[in-house]
């Protein structure tokens, strides 16, 4: 799956599935994970779609160096979780 994903990204694919932990818990399928997408961005120097990138910045999920949430959870998310 990693090899296939790397080949697709190298070939310029612009959409891949993201499921938590590569495990589609409802269907019992394996797919590509959110982590995988981040790794591919790192490896190939790709960036999110511009609108998505802007949204990630506004939410505090991506820093100026395009790293996803390098430190703690953004305050607005933490507020939603049980103490």
């Amino acid at each position, binding site marked *: 799956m990693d090899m296939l994903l790397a080949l697709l990204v190298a070939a310029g694919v612009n959409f891949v599935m993201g499921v*938590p*932990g*590569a*495990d*589609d*818990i409802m*269907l*019992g*399928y*394996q797919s590509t*994970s959110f*982590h995988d997408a*981040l*790794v591919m*961005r*790192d490896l190939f120097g790709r960036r999110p779609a511009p609108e998505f990138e802007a949204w990630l910045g506004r939410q505090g999920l991506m820093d100026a160096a395009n*790293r*996803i949430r390098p430190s703690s959870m953004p305050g607005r998310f933490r507020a939603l979780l049980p103490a």
Partner: protein
Amino acid sequence: MTTARIGLRRTGASLATGPMLDFQLARGRARDAVREPLDEGRLIAELAGLSDPVLTVSSAAEDRQRYLMRPDLGRRLAPGAEATLAPHKDGYDVVFVITAGLSARAVQAHARPVIACLLPALRADHWRVAPLVIVRYGRVAVGDAIATTLLAACVAVLIGERPGLSAPDSMGAYLTWQPRADTTDADRNCISNIRPEGIGYNDAAFKLAHMLRAMRARRLSGVQLKDGSDRLLLDR
């Protein structure tokens, strides 16, 4: 809350070693579950108090490898099966069929408790229940021929579901009213994810009894029949 793989630790952008090893272990368990054989002797012994006799037949698939490669063979009975079933041909309201499907451990663990919850409820309603039938290397549609041979009005197939990474032991129950040669999967109802961490034994038996009664009352199954048992629970 959930066994979904959320909030997993990272190193850099990628997955940390711990959750990666957990994933590989879960995948190994899923693969094992697909290949694991059903311990028929043990299952028959455990079912003994619930059904007399417990019948055992085979599908047309000769071994597990062929069963996995040839879904069509798993849907048909072996040539000798009819002779095993024929002496019990007697007109029933329902026949329960148990087969490993893609997870023997699912039916090994969950078939007996669900049937044990369900049979008293059906018998209290004067349902005539056929002897339990265990099928070696069976798929869902193999139950059609069994119901036809035993003259059962409907068939409930308890079968191990394709293992996922979070559940290698999930059991499904497929219900079909008056199956015939041209029955398709659209004519069936399914209750999926039967296991203690999913739909528990009592809830599964409740849903099954509800669906079986609805099938009998409306004389149909499949897409025209909806599972209203959750509504029933809310109204109580």
